[in-house]
């Protein structure tokens, strides 16, 4: 099974608009996974039916039984995360800061602390407008373990793809290069980096690419808003060439990205020219998968 993951390093480069358009072009060829669980937006464009939802539990949350607690404060002393403050005469767990290490529970002399599974979000399975299946999720407020939720989304997507006999999973990743991104890369065959000609986007793409190289994942590039700065577009091309990365499309800045979004449509449904452009892009991705099947990180 092949997994194409769409990433950007910097946020706001058009990653999700592009991913959703590719999903519409690919149609029933793929199963879609929205791994930007922290700020998921793909569902706003793809009309998911939410036919199946499941609570996602991950990690541990400490809980103090106030009836057993004798306020000795040992838990407070051992907690490295300042998650057990003393408020109104009793020790309480601050659920935002508890990392679930369980240290408090192991040292409590009264056995007053239980370590429970923590509700960390929700996973949804949907049919989307293109007729295919999408797995998406919502992380709980301020929750940890977004990496694990990403892994769950991908895992579900793989199972669905296998069940339906689909060979490709199309993944919308999150910005940055931290734990949700690392998690979304496991099993990836190819990364599509969406950048824009700004100093910060180029800087972020370089950091992203270093990480992709670290995991030996091959990459292609799309330059969005390509008329923003000629100089930086040139700089991007020089850097791409040095690293042997193919730029498969340049898209000039277009307010249609916003107008399409407001109508809850993907670009290809909003304007004919994008239908052509994204068909070309999708074929480039398929070609790459066919001809460059190497460096696949498992």
């Amino acid at each position, binding site marked *: 099974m092949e997994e194409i993951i769409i990433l950007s390093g910097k946020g706001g480069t058009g990653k999700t608009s592009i991913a959703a358009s590719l999903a519409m072009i690919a149609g029933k060829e793929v199963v879609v996974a929205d791994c930007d669980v922290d700020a998921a937006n793909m569902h706003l464009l793809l009309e998911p039916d939410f036919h199946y939802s499941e609570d996602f539990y991950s990690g541990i949350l400490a809980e103090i039984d106030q009836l057993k607690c004798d306020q000795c404060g040992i838990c407070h002393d*051992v907690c490295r995360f300042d998650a057990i403050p003393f408020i109104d005469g009793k020790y309480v767990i601050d659920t935002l800061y508890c990392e679930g290490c369980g240290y408090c529970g192991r040292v409590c002399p009264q056995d007053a602390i239980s370590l429970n599974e923590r509700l960390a979000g929700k996973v949804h399975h949907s049919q989307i407008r293109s007729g295919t299946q999408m797995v998406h999720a919502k992380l709980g407020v301020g929750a940890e373990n977004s990496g694990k939720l990403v892994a769950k989304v991908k895992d579900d997507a793989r199972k669905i793809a296998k069940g339906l006999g689909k060979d490709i999973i199309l993944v919308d990743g999150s910005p*940055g290069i931290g734990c949700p991104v690392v998690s979304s890369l496991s099993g990836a065959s190819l990364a599509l980096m969406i950048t824009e000609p700004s100093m910060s986007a180029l800087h972020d793409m370089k950091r992203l690419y270093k990480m992709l190289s670290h995991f030996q994942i091959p990459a292609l590039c799309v330059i969005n808003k390509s008329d923003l700065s000629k100089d930086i577009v040139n700089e991007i091309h020089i850097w791409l060439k040095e690293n042997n990365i193919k730029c498969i499309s340049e898209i000039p800045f277009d307010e249609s990205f916003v107008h399409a*979004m407001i109508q809850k449509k993907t670009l290809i449904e909003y304007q004919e020219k994008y239908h052509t452009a994204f068909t070309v892009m999708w074929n480039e991705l398929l070609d790459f998968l066919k001809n460059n099947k190497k460096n696949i990180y498992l």
Partner: protein
Amino acid sequence: MSVLNHKKIAIASGKGGTGKTMLSVNLAGFLSKQKRVLLTDLDVEEPNCLLLLKEASVSEVVDAFKMIPSWDIDKCTFCGLCAKNCMFNAIVRLGPQIVVFKELCHSCYACTELCPENALPMQEVKIGQLTHVEDVNLIAVEGQLKIGEEQAVPMIEQALEYSTKFFDDSDIQILDCPPGNSCPLVAAVKDADFVILVTEPTPFGLNDLSIAVETVRIIGKKVGVVINKDGLGDSGVSDYCKENNVPILGKIKYDQRIASLYAQGELIYNKIGHVNQALIDIVSALEKEVV
């Protein structure tokens, strides 16, 4: 301007690319005309503030660390308690060896402090670096996570801690936060007096803003919104703010010149009049809301 004295103002956004760093750097530059400003870049996965402060000179670059256990083979009796105590599977007993997976370690100290033989002393491991730069009236600190390092939170905490030594000499601190709504954001705004959420007037912007407002309110922080690229999208964000009593501190008009200047890494408020005016509005709204 006195109500903002010695305040910590966090600038965040659920969605990436809404103009968080643009606002942070321009607000810091704008304020530094009258105040000593401390700017801390907490977007440690992809920090960009320093790219925009070209005039500033680097004073210091130091390594950032987190603490992980190391294994003392001579003291270890292979009781396996450490592996049992670690909730993150960061310590595993593999045959005649105890292996520590540093990426998984949360530095909770349970393994080391509960080891009956003291066979797991904690040691520093590098996770990134801190850069301190100075301009005339502006001090900036950037935390940058090492590539391949997964945990942003310890890096954010160290950037905050490192910044505190400059705080006493500053009149105000601006915190450029990471995008998203999960643990890195919670860590970044922990000590902030006020959180500004930068959004754009689009459905994606609105969706991410509403999650960010919910998160910041649960943390118990005061919050206000700056609408960037105003005029580009629809009225969804303004309607949401009205319905949910979220003050709109100011709006920055959609203007292609902003994107072009920002792309080149230029400051904007001193080149485009309406941006300067927007900052004046934001600061005066902030003064009312912070109290």
